[in-house]
């Protein structure tokens, strides 16, 4: 079993697989260009206080995105302890 939550809710340090990006075309395109897209496994590196930006890692790429964008990215938490 796995849970689907938004990236903004995911605790820092956890890994998950992107299951949907609910944002507009612009966001999908920008993320896509950085290699962040549906099916990719990402790690949430950190989140700032007061709905600040979220930092995610995909492969060797780290991207900081706003809290609002993180809310639109849905991830499936990896239950196997995050091993790739």
């Amino acid at each position, binding site marked *: 079993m796995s849970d689907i939550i938004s990236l903004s809710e995911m605790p820092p340090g956890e890994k998950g697989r992107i299951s949907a990006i609910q944002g507009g075309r612009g966001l999908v395109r920008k993320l896509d260009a950085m290699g962040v897209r549906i099916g990719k496994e990402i790690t949430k590196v950190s989140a700032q206080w007061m709905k600040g930006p979220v930092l995610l890692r995909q492969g060797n790429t780290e991207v*900081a995105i706003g809290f609002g964008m993180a809310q639109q990215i849905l991830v499936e938490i990896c239950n196997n302890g995050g091993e790739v």
Partner: protein
Amino acid sequence: MKVLLMGNPNVGKSVVFNRLTGADVIASNYPGTTVEFTQGSMKIEGEKAEVIDVPGTYTLEPTCKAEEIAVDMLKEGDVVINILDSTNLERSLNLTLQLVKKRVPLIIALNLWDETKHTGISIDVKKLEEILGIPCIPTCAITGVGIKQLVEKIKDAKITELEYDDEEKWHEIGNIIDKVQTVTHRHHTFLERLGDASVKPLTGIPIALAVMFLTFKIIRFIGEGLIGYVFEPLFEKLWTPLMLKLSGLMGSTGFFHNLIIGKLIDGEIDYGQSFGLLTTGIFVPIGAVLPYVFAFYVVLSFLEDSGYLPRLAVMVDTVMHKLGIHGLAIIPMLLGFGCNVPGALSTRILETRRERFIAATLLAIAVPCMALQAMVIGLVGEHGAKGLGAVFGTLFVVWIILGIILNRILKGKSLEIFVEIPPYRIPYIRGLVKKIWIRIKWFIKEAVPFVLLGVFIANLLYTLGIIQFIGKFTAPVVTGVFGLPKEAVGALVIGFLRKDVAIGMLVPLGLTLKQLVIASVVLSMYFPCIATFTTLVKELGFTDMLKSAGIMVVSSLIVGGLLNLVL
């Protein structure tokens, strides 16, 4: 022939450019260092070729202004050197495959090749060449490895026959990666752990504060040290005796003497008050400002190359949103502390017009450049740290409050931050030295002529009685609102040209500490210097610059007046 350098942001295009052309372009470790294309030339088999350093782009469907420039440039290129980040092959190939569709001759530089080793990545270059049908050369531009081979292969650049369906792009890239790349497991390095620590709130906030504190301390240490041990002795022991001799030869008085040497104060040269071209005109940029400019660029260049700045952007993002700009706007602000011109140029890393307007306006009003700061430190600092605290504290409060107001009254909303965070890198010393040197050269070339012009015009205006004349009309504001003597208007006039000369013009007026604080704040805020002004007109357009200038004048009147009342 036109050769374009294209690739994702922060893969080292500018470093390759410098290697190919021998030019001096600023390169740093954050995406968006190059916001405008830069041209240079090189020889390919004896023939001259034009090389263009194109701003970084993730995709050929532009998402910001710098990317639009990149896509426009593509039409003009005869050959594209596509620079890849070897540690981020998948993402880099995304752009490569888009370039393939444009049917331009391509050659690939697998840059940052050295970093693949400690990231546990190995790439089969031969196989990659085979699949893509394009020559691929591993390079490490910063040390120069592979550049020679790259140059030799430019003539072999070709349009590949590789075909793929747009829908299947990522699938195609996945296939290529599977065939050419193997990744071995490895442990996290110290720099990676430090990278994580500097973006987590609990550790990141103390790190940010420590970096800011150290930045401030180191700049002061280097600046004061250089002045005390190098520049002051140089001027006192070498330049002053020379100038006194020259002064004697010129008869110690008269219009030309006063223009070149300035007025002698009790028979001596006083660099603060003499105001001659060869005395104050040389001392201000070289003796007073240069040491701090140098100190600032040493620290800034190190911070840029380490990769800390985008992390700082993440840490300050929440606060900056209150001002209508996101965290990345910290970069133009930091650059602005050196000189407002590069600061204004780098507002281009912000996506919307609204954000660029707010950032540029706040920069021009409340971010004092190093030239102005150095003079304020010299003049106000004599009265102790309290005066300095009042000047810089006021500017900081203005920055915050004005930002909040602009965010409220301007239509629209600011975007959220979206930025790639590069890995920490140990700055490459030779690269660092070169970059500091480029900036010092630029400062001397830009500042010295304008300072001399400023001193020249100031002399002229005083001799012809123009300052005294203007002073009569402006007295209600200068004296009535700001509480300054009416001669201080001279500084406001020259401030259009150079802020450091303007502060220097306050020296002979014998102002009180309160007046010095007000004059320093007003001079920082009321209008940008001419170099910044022309840059802002270019960046914002004439109408927006007019609006911005209106805000500057009004806010300096309010703040200067308030200070006069409360201090």
